[in-house]
């Protein structure tokens, strides 16, 4: 299966699992899924049979509310059975409303309180350097999330400690709960900001799996990497695309059917 088809199938899983849960965040999950597919299928060194393998690359979904996308990928990779996806957000499920590293196999960090994940990820990268480990840490932040000051405290530290084993990826879909980034709190130019903080910066189409793969594999030395992934919130489901209203709302059964038809998946 080509990865574009894989991503479509996982989009279907996202829509179905949020419908089954009755709540959740489809918009940001659909915007980030191609980034996760590129990382888990082309870039990262992981072993689903050994989720705590010390030398694995780490994925920190700092925008933790998009965890349905991560869960869909982890299930597909075999970290846990695909049937579990239907238990999302339900009592006693290992699939919490926001990622929990103690409950879900393959989740490298508990996230969801925005800004914290990317900062903890930076600490993971410092530890790798200190312990002379070769793993790489990938942290995915949302564009609303980078309004948090902690994101920039962590960026300063990442450059200070010359963390070329850290990649921060921005899922830049332009929308947050209350509207567009510019209506809520303008971000300015995130690439110029990260550049000013000392990162090697790249911009990529966040739905082009090959392009994301290529930029993730581009070596950078002596400084952290920042990738601005230009994305569309709700990507792949026409009625959710570019609509802040789908940030945190579950689709109805009819809407799921319509979405699956568009995605050409079951």
């Amino acid at each position, binding site marked *: 299966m080509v990865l574009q088809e894989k991503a479509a199938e996982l989009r279907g899983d996202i829509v179905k699992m949020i419908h089954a849960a009755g709540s959740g965040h489809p918009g940001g999950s659909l915007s980030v899924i191609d980034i996760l597919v590129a990382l888990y299928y082309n870039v990262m060194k992981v072993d689903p049979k050994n989720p705590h393998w010390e030398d694995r690359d780490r994925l920190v979904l700092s925008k933790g509310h998009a965890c349905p996308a991560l869960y869909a990928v982890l299930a597909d990779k075999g970290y846990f059975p695909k049937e579990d996806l239907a238990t999302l957000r339900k009592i006693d499920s290992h699939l919490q409303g926001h990622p929990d590293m103690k409950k879900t196999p393959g989740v490298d960090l*508990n996230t969801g309180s925005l800004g914290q994940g990317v900062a903890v990820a930076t600490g*993971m990268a410092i*530890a790798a350097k*200190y312990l002379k480990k070769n793993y790489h840490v990938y942290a995915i932040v949302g564009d609303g999330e980078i309004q948090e000051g*902690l994101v920039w405290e*962590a960026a300063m530290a990442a450059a200070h400690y010359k963390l070329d084993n850290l990649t921060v990826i921005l899922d830049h879909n332009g929308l947050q709960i209350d509207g567009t980034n510019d209506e809520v709190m303008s971000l300015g130019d995130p690439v110029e900001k990260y550049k000013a903080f000392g990162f090697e910066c790249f911009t990529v189409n966040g739905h082009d799996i090959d392009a994301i793969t290529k930029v993730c594999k581009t070596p950078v030395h002596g400084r952290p990497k920042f990738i601005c992934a230009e994305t569309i919130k709700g990507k792949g489901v026409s009625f959710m695309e570019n609509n802040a209203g789908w940030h945190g709302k579950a689709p109805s059964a009819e809407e799921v059917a319509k979405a699956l038809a568009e995605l050409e998946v079951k």
Partner: protein
Amino acid sequence: MGKSIRIAYGEALNEIAEYNDKLVVCDADLGHATMTNIFAEKHPDRFFNFGIAECNLVAEATGMAHAGLVPFVSTFALFGAGRAYEIIRNSVCYVNANVKFALTHSGLCVGEDGGSHQAIEDLALMRVLPHMTILVPCDYEQTKKCVKAAAEIDGPVYIRVARPVVDEITTAETPFEVGKAQVMKDGTDVCLMATGLMVGTALKAAEMLEAEGISCAVINHHTIKPLDAEIVRKYHEKCKGIVACEEHSIYGGLGSAIAEVIAGVPGGKFAQVGVMDKFGKSGTPDALFEAYGLTAEHMVEEAKKFL
């Protein structure tokens, strides 16, 4: 002859470094005040400064803990426990991450820097976090024991490190066990249950009471969480009253923890000496203790009300 609690902390780090290669220390531009500089000078490769950014300090240390290291985090208590509170809750305690907090400049004893820098609510904030162990040493030797014990616990620990040089009331040989309060002096009429710097003050109050023929026990609650509930129940039954003594708000600290144990006991006999519901201010530590009622005389007064 008194000795510095903060220096005990720095020295303990160096001692742990000798046998624990996972130990690393993180600070936020206060190494010369928290005394982590004692460690940094000897182990520069194991010391990480994160600048004046306490939220990031805690988050970075958490990432290091997830990689198997044992990070000790230091800054002033108000900025560590206060400003970075939600990171401690969601990134550290939520998953029982192995991060140690040795936060200094707690309580009124900060002195002249004033109320903006005196954490009188840190114990309250830390107590409500599941997984958190809370230690409050009373002097130099006990500080070393707390720091070493914390390094061996698998999970977050908060150590309240006071600023001043204080009289030594324990020795290197005094037994220490996390969760087990220490009987500093036994007695049958009243019981002073103290923590941190107030342990020394309570011993002075006990002397004053004994001089008047009142038998007074002094218990050192160096562990605020898990509190030694058994000793609380024992002395509550044995004595005519318990006075909780702490350099902390009367809300949420040792006094509250004791009250939670004896709540519902018929004829409960309990009083508090602590910071009433107000902020600190500038002054010498002794002048502040006097102004806020954290004195042996006040402890005596409260204890006598039970007789």
